[in-house]
């Protein structure tokens, strides 16, 4: 669970801290352009680092500095609680004069307040951990160290943190691009979930019992669901097919032919199964209500909130009144911004004076954070 996410000088996020500590689920609301999605983009940068992208230029560019302010470092800090330990990861980038690409200014990973490694520009200092000796070495300052530093074992704090960060689910699905085909397995779906088939294969291979969870959830929404199959087609490829049955008749439908909303049900089912099989996970879902019928939205969001109450953390953004109503004042955060020249501000809704119903206030724009 995230205890602290701090971002500075990245797009509209300046001296920005997301107050989600202690909340198993949280909702980000606010007008268009206030930075809700950018919070997900910031998390995505950290996730990409953990997934192996280490070239700084592939992560952030000069245009990402807030208002082009290149004289101040761009900084990302995340503090998470995993098991009984607190992990703190900090990375700061800078763009010195005459540099074409940003470089790493500072990078640190601490566990329980003790550094695993720290870094100042090119100089990396590996702390003495367990049997491993203290070490110092140089690294190209255009490369992030986290993907490079080798962990001792899967029990090593570095491995645990990196795996958690890599497995964060940051989702903004585009159902029309999700076909259900796969050539491999993964536990790390991409932003648009176009690799749904590989994710499905990965979860079932990792924990076959996850199929029951997926099926149980989907069966509630689609009572005529009979089976989800993932047959081999061609060489080393699979293609998902959903079998429906009613009144003794059966109908197989290729995954790609499901409706956009039905594909979102499928994604939700995998999120629930993933959190159960290899969680606790952080799931950041940008507008999970997209593509859903109004009568589905409330229960969809509530199912996610409920699932993450027993472990992990679910963060959503939304403009949808049904989704917004499924959260309460202690877990709803309002993002605002006076203009494109000013940074995003975030406040819990409990600190904002609202007259009458929240949704009506949002519609009237009688809402001054």
């Amino acid at each position, binding site marked *: 669970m995230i205890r602290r996410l701090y971002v500075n000088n990245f797009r509209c996020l300046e001296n920005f801290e997301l107050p989600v500590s202690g909340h198993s689920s949280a909702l980000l609301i606010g007008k268009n352009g206030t930075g809700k999605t950018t919070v997900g983009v910031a998390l995505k940068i950290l996730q990409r680092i953990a997934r192996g992208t280490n070239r700084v230029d592939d992560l952030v560019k000069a245009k990402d500095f807030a208002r082009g302010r290149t004289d101040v470092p761009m900084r990302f800090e995340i503090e998470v609680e995993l098991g009984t330990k607190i992990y703190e990861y900090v990375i700061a980038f800078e763009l010195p004069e005459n540099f074409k690409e940003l470089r790493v200014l500072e990078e640190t990973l601490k566990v329980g307040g003790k550094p695993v490694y720290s870094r100042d520009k090119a100089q990396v200092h590996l702390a003495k951990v367990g049997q491993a000796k203290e070490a110092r070495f140089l690294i190209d300052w255009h490369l992030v160290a986290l993907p490079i530093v080798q962990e001792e074992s899967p029990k090593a704090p570095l491995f645990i943190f990196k795996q958690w960060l890599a497995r964060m689910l940051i989702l903004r699905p585009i159902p029309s691009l999700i076909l259900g085909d796969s050539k491999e397995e993964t536990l790390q779906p991409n932003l648009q979930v176009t690799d749904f088939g590989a994710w499905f294969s990965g979860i079932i291979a990792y924990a076959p019992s996850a199929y029951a969870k997926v099926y149980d959830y989907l069966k*509630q929404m689609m009572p005529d669901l009979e089976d989800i199959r993932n047959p081999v087609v061609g060489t080393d490829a699979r293609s998902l097919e959903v079998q429906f049955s009613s009144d003794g008749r059966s109908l197989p439908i290729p995954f790609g032919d499901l409706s956009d909303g039905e594909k979102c049900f499928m994604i939700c089912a995998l999120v629930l199964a993933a959190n159960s099989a290899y969680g606790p996970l952080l799931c950041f879902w940008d507008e999970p209500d997209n593509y859903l019928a109004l009568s589905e939205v409330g229960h969809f969001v509530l199912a996610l909130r*409920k699932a993450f109450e027993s472990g992990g953390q679910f963060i959503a953004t939304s403009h949808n009144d049904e989704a917004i109503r499924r959260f*309460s004042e202690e877990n709803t955060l309002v993002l605002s911004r006076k203009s494109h020249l000013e940074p995003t501000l975030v406040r819990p809704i409990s600190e904002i004076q609202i007259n009458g119903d929240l949704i009506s206030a949002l519609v009237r724009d009688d809402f001054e954070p």
Partner: protein
Amino acid sequence: MSVNKYLPYLFVLPEDDANRQLANGFHLNIDKIRQMQVLEVAGGWREVLDLFSSVHITEMERDGNRYMVLLIDFDGKPNRLDKVRTIIPNHLSERVFVLGTLTDPEALRHALRPADLDSYEKIGSALAFDCRDATDATWSHDLLRHNSGEIDRLRLSVWPILFHFV
């Protein structure tokens, strides 16, 4: 996941935003979340009655699986229950329930803060735990115990819709 109307289900009609959040906390902690739906806030207890009369009576007559909780503030008037009951048709009375805080939810939240129930959602969760575990730790609070008659009725007909009892 919309409400499954092939089985009995519960609609909760909250008076205001605070009551909506109480209902949210309750909803998060039932076993069968698909058998309950929290509706839009009505905007006052009289508006709850207006909405119930103008929309839900007809819908309940049409759908025998629908149960309703009217979630209102009693504003210090326990006899409000009798007033509300006068608008509930006899043939629906077994499926309609009236619950609420004796004064208002803010007073309840203030009173329960020492018990670490410092938000409406947490209070709603605690009320759901009481129902699930057949306890009355929170329902027996001074600002809630006037609901006991309705709770007894709910225990018989509605809790089995929402909870998996062994």
